[in-house]
């Protein structure tokens, strides 16, 4: 394609839009947190192991309690 192509010249000259100031800084601060968050090994251990294991444990206890309660009500 030729450099003298008027359509391509117009395309090249289109304005470059940007996000507003609030959004720009919001994304920046979230990204900084994401970058720093990875540095905390405890946070990673909590996110990936402790929290899922804790939720799983609570769910199992609740299920046993619910089945036990139903069994008692119906005298099974």
């Amino acid at each position, binding site marked *: 394609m030729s450099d003298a192509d008027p*359509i391509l010249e117009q*395309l090249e000259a289109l304005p470059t839009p940007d996000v507003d100031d609030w959004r720009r800084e919001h994304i920046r601060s*979230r990204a900084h947190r994401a970058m*720093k968050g990875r540095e905390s090994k405890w946070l990673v251990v909590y996110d990936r192991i402790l929290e899922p294991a804790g939720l799983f444990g609570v769910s199992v206890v609740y299920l046993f309690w619910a089945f036990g309660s139903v069994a008692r009500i119906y005298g099974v």
Partner: protein
Amino acid sequence: MGATEVINEHDAERALVARLRARDTAAFDEAYDRYRPRVFGFLLRLTQQRALAEDLLQETFLRLATKASGLAEDTRVQAWLFTVARNLFLSHRRWVLLDLDRIGALGKSPAPPPPTPYERSAARETNERLERALARLPVKYREVMLLVAVEGLSPSEAAVIVDVKPEALRQRLRRAREMLADALVAKEERGTS
């Protein structure tokens, strides 16, 4: 651009990637301030929706932040960002098309989208005509036009981003250029008749 400048730019980019790999937030800021407007412009013209483009921009740079330490040493940051942005857009588009299929199956037709704030705020008439003609191009032609003609990437860089061979990309570019010219001529004829 001379050979020395290309080498210097390449060295500067490798240094930036090295700092990103070390999770240096100042390096993130440098990449964010340098590439954000271009990635946002690409997404805005691809999606035609400001809110969606903002969401995809956020997701793109969060991916850079979370995957920074795993970047290859020779990563080209700009190409990496455009590739992620494009993939996020395509994933969103697939999801929306699936959703529209479901709505269609229920016998309902979605309301036509209202003009976006971006369309309303297009200031100059020439730009507005061009933006509208661009917006009407099918996505596979629009994305190559945006990457090469608007964002100034080389055809070989754009070919890597859209995952096609350079020759196929050049063909798409030629076709996109023809379609754009036809759309602009048709608009002028409608305007004068």
